[in-house]
């Protein structure tokens, strides 16, 4: 059986043209996906059932027991942290926010170690954005700054930018100019018509210089900024000003470089400045397939996109204080529920060390590095493969993930709702 138009649950390109071959309840092949997507569909080393850590090793436990113990741990905690969320659907994210509110905990998503700075910048200067079809149909200049889409978003160029023909752009490969900015050569810089090679940490200065040039104040800029010549900068500024439609994409090279959200802010203000001359838009290259979904859900429910602290019964937001890495590194939390992510694999050592000293429960279909720190792990259905639900693409377009097979596995949302029900029925703080 071939299931058509399946939406890929890997990255936030959310390619929705996959054909998935299913035989005997297993995926046997995937057409149209990139390697990353195919791999996700074909991987199958799942945990068979809930497990609990004991002194003598892992013990299999019934689902109700795992759920009940998780509920008890959450209720007893004075500062529980509910972290992850990017790899699951909106229905589970929504249940997670309700649960965090109910137990007076902190809820945070992988955003806080990824595009959190993009959101902080948007909170300062706004987001001049669009859906990806605007880029495909109109853009004649595309900028990739501090990201390597060839590796991280392999079909981005063919679906939305460099190779994607559109209504007004009939021969994209010929008609589009691509500018790539990075600190070193990559497979993406190899495609560039203009490669801006800058020194690490120099993004803020370079973007500022470009802004000044677009404002006609280029004479203030010194001959070289962070390793980039003023000549090249002026050439880039002119190219951008003359574009009919420019699209700016960016990734971790900007968000995780010194200054973080200030780098993004500068990029946004550059796009704003260019918008006074011609049409420009900006889109963050979100990573996980539904990380933006968490930001959307959390925002309409709490007012804030991530890092929400419910300890005082209302929503308090302060990245740097209410973000998972900070809470763990400062040893503030006394219990952690991890859903659809792998903090032990990604967080700084200081934060991961604290995970070892508190009870951790993980909802995840696969054993991963966080399993080594978990007291209980409950396998759940994989969103987009054996669980349906809503996901938000990097540009905000919401799609419904399909279920292509059934493994008899509960989904995250139902488990989280059951945990909440147990806490509500049993009373609490």
């Amino acid at each position, binding site marked *: 059986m071939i299931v058509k138009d399946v939406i890929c649950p890997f990255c936030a390109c959310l390619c929705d043209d996959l054909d998935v071959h299913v035989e005997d309840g297993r995926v046997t092949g995937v057409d149209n996906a990139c390697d990353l997507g195919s791999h996700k569909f074909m991987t199958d080393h799942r945990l068979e059932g809930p497990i609990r850590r004991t002194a003598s090793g892992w013990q299999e436990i019934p689902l109700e027991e795992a759920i009940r113990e998780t509920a008890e741990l959450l209720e007893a*905690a*004075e*500062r*529980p942290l509910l972290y992850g969320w990017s790899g699951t659907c909106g229905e589970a994210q929504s249940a997670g926010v309700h649960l965090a509110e109910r*137990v*007076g*905990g902190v809820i945070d998503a992988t955003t806080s170690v990824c595009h959190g700075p993009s959101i*902080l910048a948007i*909170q*300062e200067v706004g987001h001049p954005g669009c859906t990806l079809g605007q880029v495909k149909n109109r853009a004649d200049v595309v900028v990739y700054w501090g990201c390597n889409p060839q590796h991280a978003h392999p079909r981005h160029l063919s679906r939305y930018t460099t190779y994607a023909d559109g209504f007004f752009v009939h021969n994209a490969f010929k008609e589009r100019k691509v500018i790539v900015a990075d600190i070193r050569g990559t497979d993406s810089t190899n495609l560039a018509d203009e490669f801006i090679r800058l020194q690490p*940490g120099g993004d*803020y*200065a370079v973007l*500022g*210089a470009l*802004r*000044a040039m677009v*404002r006609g*104040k280029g004479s*203030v*800029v*010194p001959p070289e*900024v962070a390793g980039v010549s003023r000549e090249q900068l002026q050439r880039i500024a002119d190219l951008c000003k003359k574009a009919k439609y420019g699209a700016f994409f960016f990734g971790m090279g900007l968000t995780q470089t*010194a*200054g973080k959200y*200030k780098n993004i*802010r*500068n990029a946004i*203000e550059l796009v704003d400045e260019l918008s006074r001359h011609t049409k420009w838009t900006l889109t963050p290259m979100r990573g996980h397939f539904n990380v933006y979904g968490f930001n959307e859900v959390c925002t309409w429910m709490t007012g804030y996109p991530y890092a929400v602290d*419910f*300890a*005082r019964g209302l929503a308090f*937001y*302060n*990245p*740097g*204080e209410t973000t998972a890495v900070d809470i763990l590194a*400062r*040893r*503030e939390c*006394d219990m952690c529920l991890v859903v659809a992510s792998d903090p032990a694999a990604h967080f700084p050592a200081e934060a991961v060390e604290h995970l070892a000293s508190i009870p951790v429960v993980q909802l995840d279909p696969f054993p991963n590095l966080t399993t080594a720190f978990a007291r209980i792990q409950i396998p759940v259905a994989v969103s987009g493969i054996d669980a349906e639900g809503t996901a938000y693409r990097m540009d905000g377009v919401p799609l419904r993930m399909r279920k292509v097979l059934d493994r008899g596995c509960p989904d995250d949302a139902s488990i989280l709702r059951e945990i909440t029900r147990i806490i509500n029925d049993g009373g609490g*703080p």
Partner: protein
Amino acid sequence: MRVILTARPRKNPFIPVEAETIVPARFLPPMEGMTVAVGNRTRPLTDIFEVAVEGNATDAAGVEVVLRGDNSRLKRIGEYMEAGKILVEGDIGMHCGNFMKGGEIEIRGNADGWLGREMRGGRILCHGSASHYCGSGYRGEKHGMRGGVLEVKGGSGDFTAEYLAGGEVIIHGDCGDMPGVEMKGGTLTIHGSCTRPCGNMTGGTCTVLGKVTGMLPTFLRAGTVTWEPGGVILTRFEGDVANRGKGTLLAREWQYTP
């Protein structure tokens, strides 16, 4: 009147305590029903502190609150304070003196993040060092600190005085990255060194008496100024031309490279 709060040892000293009730006015008699939040639990103030009261006062200005013991995880003291004094004999946690309008806070040790955030008036003196976002604003608001004097004898972290709109911030030691970023008013004086100050500056005055590294390439050089006392010559920059190019940055020593 002096109220001495001595922090009791806690089983889990890492769970933060939010104590926005610790404001001088709140201790005027009758002082009852005061609670603090320990994580998601509400506890009476007396569970967390031994409380000793000396003397009397008729208004907040006559109240001095003294904090002893380990208060490094104690957040939000002095919030919205209008009068009186708080003396912290050691370190203090995040959000000390936020929205302060008047009175005085003195910290003998170090202060954690967001010291004096959105201050409107009064004085904060930190003998040790302050962490990130010292004297800064709140996310999304156009104006941060608007008034008052915030002085740190040690150094401070990143984003000191972000969105400064009024008042005075004085850092005797070194600042971290991007002090005075987005500033539009007030004065920021850094006796030590810093990196990349005053990005997007549109007003106010920032003076760096140490060294600036990573000087932003979009500042217009406009002569020199003599800094009294001492007669030090400072280079004067007019605002950030990537933005509207207003405000003044004065630096004793500077270089574009990091």
